């Protein structure tokens, strides 16, 4: 790795100040994305700001929500009894992520900010608009089996790899942000952007801002939810396709529905059209099929990833079916 300077932030203000004063600085928390991409040369900061010891890891339980500090470790959230009870899809998404060692290291904030696994993004030799704006997209016309079918543009088709973010966008999480200006909270689904013509921009975080926490509101759908992850091998692998879904049923009709998709989109994807196809309908196979089709309406395959479209539809149907199956 290219050598860099190192500074430990004692608190959020320190971190923000260091970022503000150094245009080529970046934060490191768990390190599982940053150290990896430092070694690949994709990240070449002049200064690493270590925030790993900032006291921002609390998991706070309230009547209407749970809040996670950005530095809470993935395993601590996954293993938290109240998270599993109120948000099964979130706990399942975390437990299905990465490996136990990585879940012990990686933080909630870092997980949301992880970068794509696209092989061309990670290889300095191959043109990549996300890494260098305007240099081209090697995945379009190249090997694109791991790539997105939703939210793509002619400039970028890289998939967002996080499992957690899929569950969080499904259940209306907000991300809390601190910076030089006033602290702000952003709906997670608005935090992320699609690539469009600027794939190098993935979210609304300014250079001198940090994520301080996530707020997850309790809801009927979140409380009755599940996460399904499909992959090539049985564990320790990114999703081919994943679905976070939650339902609540009243008088035989679907009252609330939430669906998030992973592995198939350029950002953690909220399937609003699918939700619309569910609300007020009977919870049966026909409804779920319509929702699955709506979820992938407008999806576009690039050759090697065409299979993700039917696979994702079937995954949506399967999760919804499992949520109404008699226990």
């Amino acid at each position: 790795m290219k050598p860099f300077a190192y500074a430990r932030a004692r608190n959020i203000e320190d971190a923000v100040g260091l970022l503000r004063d150094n245009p080529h600085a970046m934060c490191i928390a768990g390190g599982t994305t940053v150290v990896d991409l430092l070694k690949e040369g994709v990240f070449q900061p002049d200064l690493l700001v270590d925030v790993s010891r900032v006291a921002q890891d609390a998991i706070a339980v309230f009547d209407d929500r749970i809040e996670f500090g950005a530095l809470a470790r993935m395993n601590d959230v996954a293993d938290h009894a109240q998270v599993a009870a109120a948000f099964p899809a979130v706990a399942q998404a975390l437990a299905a992520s990465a490996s136990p060692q990585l879940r012990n290291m990686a933080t909630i904030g870092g997980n949301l900010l992880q970068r794509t696994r696209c092989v061309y993004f990670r290889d300095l030799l191959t043109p990549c608009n996300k890494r260098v704006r305007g240099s081209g997209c090697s995945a379009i016309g190249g090997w694109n089996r791991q790539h997105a079918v939703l939210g793509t543009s002619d400039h970028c088709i890289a998939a967002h790899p996080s499992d957690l973010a899929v569950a969080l966008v499904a259940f209306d999480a907000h991300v809390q942000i601190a910076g030089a200006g006033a602290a702000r909270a952003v709906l997670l689904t608005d935090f992320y952007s699609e690539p469009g013509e600027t794939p190098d921009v993935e979210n609304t975080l300014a250079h001198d801002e940090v994520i301080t926490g996530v707020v997850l509101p309790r809801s009927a759908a979140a409380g009755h939810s599940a996460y399904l992850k499909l992959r090539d091998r049985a564990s320790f692998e990114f999703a081919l396709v994943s679905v976070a879904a939650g339902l609540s049923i009243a008088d035989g009709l679907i009252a609330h529905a939430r669906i998030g998709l992973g592995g198939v989109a350029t950002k953690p994807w909220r399937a609003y059209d699918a939700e619309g196809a569910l609300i007020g309908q009977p919870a049966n196979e026909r409804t779920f099929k319509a929702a699955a089709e709506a979820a992938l309406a407008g999806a576009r395959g690039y050759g090697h990833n065409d299979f993700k479209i039917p696979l994702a539809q079937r995954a949506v149907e399967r999760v919804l079916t499992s949520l109404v199956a008699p226990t």
Partner: protein
Amino acid sequence: MKMQAAPTTVEIRLVVNGAERRMSVEPNVTLLDALRDRLHLTGTKKGCDQGACGACTVLVNGRRVNACLTLAVMHDGDEIATIEGLGSVDNLHPLQAAFLKHDGYQCGYCTPGQIMSAAGLLREKRDLTRESVREQMSGNICRCGAYPNIVDAILDVAGANDKA
């Protein structure tokens, strides 16, 4: 606070297997390379150097992590447990003895990482069945294919722990 030039080294103190080790390292030295090349504790292995194989698993403050994906400078004051501290040839840890009995290795290269990961797993107080152990040990790749024997070894120790 502006940084003028990259300072070359940082003074850190690691508590490795109970012993304090002070060193001056550049920020870009991983914990793994600090252990192997600076402290010459070569029991912890480099398999992929990017967190995908678990050969570099050590315990940091009691939790299993991949030493290749963290920087030494980030662990000032932390307790690091490596295979060298778990047991010795004359005083084997129960996991080490179980790996011997069940042939939980072949070439031995992934073995320290497997054992440290298992040690971390046993501290996590999970419900351990054959299936859950397979899942919980999936962060440790063994290309020689000792997996079923590794699971046998871990369940052997976990079962003994239950009875204890």
